């Protein structure tokens, strides 16, 4: 990590070419103060597919994901250098409307974080700020989002109960509903099931597969079976570099890079 990127010639192994990527990270470096966490990441995210980011702890998976909606910016000393194109526009360019960017690129976090308000308000709060809806339209949007997050049937009679009253898995689907209500084009998921039991995890995986019909998903996961089950493409990160990027089916059966194989077979990480 102490060796500057330029001095180590490095080439990501690529087994797949992405046509018309929604997001395209180009030569992305990332710094936490003086320490560099990402080195020249090049990654294309295919539209309406699920792209998984895997790799051992501390390899930069989350760091990479957190550049896509510029959420890292609220912390002092964190800095992204390079280009990240969203529909051809560099989202790191100065003058980018971050509020609009975050409406288009939603994010789900490790731990469910319902807002301290009712289930209805959890979904409606952001919608009201971004869209000029009538009360009726707002109610429709909330229902539609809760349905899309496979939560409606469980909460339709509890809409005015606090969001914190739900179970962990339900809370995470509430967060997904909340994000979907903004009509995002991309949904970033940062280990969305690591704090949730296996049954609830299965429901969320199912949901991700449904979601890719309408939007693009990028999911960071520690769980390789999960990546294998739900993703179309996978990027393997190690020490801040993208070692290998390819179709999930190929990577999990026949990885090209020895490091990838070691990680997938559980020899490190």
């Amino acid at each position: 990590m102490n060796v500057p990127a330029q001095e180590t010639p490095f080439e990501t192994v690529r087994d797949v070419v992405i046509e018309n990527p929604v997001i395209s990270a180009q030569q992305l470096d990332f710094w936490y103060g003086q320490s560099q966490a990402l080195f020249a990441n090049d990654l294309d995210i295919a539209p309406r597919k699920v792209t998984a980011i895997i790799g051992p702890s501390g390899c930069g998976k989350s760091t990479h994901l957190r550049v896509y909606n510029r959420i890292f910016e609220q912390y002092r000393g964190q800095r992204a250098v390079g280009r990240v194109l969203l529909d051809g526009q560099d989202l790191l360019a100065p003058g980018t409307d971050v509020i609009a960017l975050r409406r288009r690129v939603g994010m789900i976090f490790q731990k469910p974080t319902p807002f301290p308000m009712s289930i209805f308000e959890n979904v409606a709060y952001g919608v009201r700020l971004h869209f000029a809806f009538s009360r009726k339209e707002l109610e429709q949007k909330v229902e539609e989002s809760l349905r899309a997050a496979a939560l409606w049937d469980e909460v339709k009679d509890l809409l005015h109960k606090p969001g914190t009253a739900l179970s962990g898995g339900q809370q995470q689907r509430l967060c997904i509903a909340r994000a979907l209500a903004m009509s995002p084009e991309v949904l970033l998921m940062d280990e969305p099931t690591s704090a949730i039991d296996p049954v609830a995890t299965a429901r969320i995986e199912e949901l991700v597969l449904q979601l890719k019909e309408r939007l693009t998903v990028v999911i960071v996961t520690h769980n390789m079976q999960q990546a294998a089950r739900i993703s179309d493409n996978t990027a393997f990160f190690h020490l801040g570099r993208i070692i290998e990027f390819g179709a999930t089916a190929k990577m999990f059966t026949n990885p090209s890079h020895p490091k990838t194989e070691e990680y997938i077979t559980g020899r490190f990480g």
Partner: protein
Amino acid sequence: MTELRLSHRPATARKALDVFVRAFSVLSAALGIFFLFWILWVVLQKGHTVLSWSFFTSAPPSPGEGVGGIKYALVGTLKMTGLACLMGVPVGLLTGVYLAEFGRHGAFASGVRFCVNLLMGIPSILVGLFAYTIIVLAAPRHYSGNAGAFALAIIMLPTVARTSEDMLLLVPDALRESALALGIPRWRVITGILFRAARKGLLTGVLLSVSRVSGETAPLLFTALNNNFYPKDLSQPTANLTVTIYNYAMSPYDNWQRVAWGASLVIMAFLLGVTLLLRFILKERHRS
């Protein structure tokens, strides 16, 4: 290498010391409680004789004639405390917001935090002197409830600022991030979501600061002063409980002294009420 030497203190001596230390600390604790109850007892004993509904609704008595009531002082104190809240709470709250949400570890925030701590330690009589100098001595050169409220607001400010900061910092960053990630602007995240998440803690800070100023006398002595008339207007010297207690308790008239005890009891009951309310609020939070 230093040689390890075991001290062969006999077990009986060690046990005796243990008993002694334990007994001494229990005794010290009991002593603290003892004085608290003694004070409560004296105030209750001396104050309860004047308590009645009319004590809260009557004008102050003339020297030597009956007990009258503390209506004017009570209203004056409430009005000044209310005005102090209107000035001190927003500034204190926004200071807390700056420290927790914007400044955090920055150099300016550290400076502000240091100053707030300093302000918290300034004796209240100095705050009173300050308000006296810049408000009372300025035109139209007279004592006023406004000056008193200003002094109280300065005393409230650091308490509100520090508790607000602490309570906002208790809200996990994950909640901030997930709100920001929805494209909610920073100020809406703070006012709409973080304030709501921390509302009990924020209310606690306000109540703490109110209870802190409710017994303050020194800063009112040369700002609000006191008054024998109903406090219609805070631009005049304003009747208040603490200076009333001070004046009446020092007077030679028996009936005034009794009123002073009664007013003391009222303040004490108020503080007790606030403390119980705080306990209740904080317990609620632990449960949820």
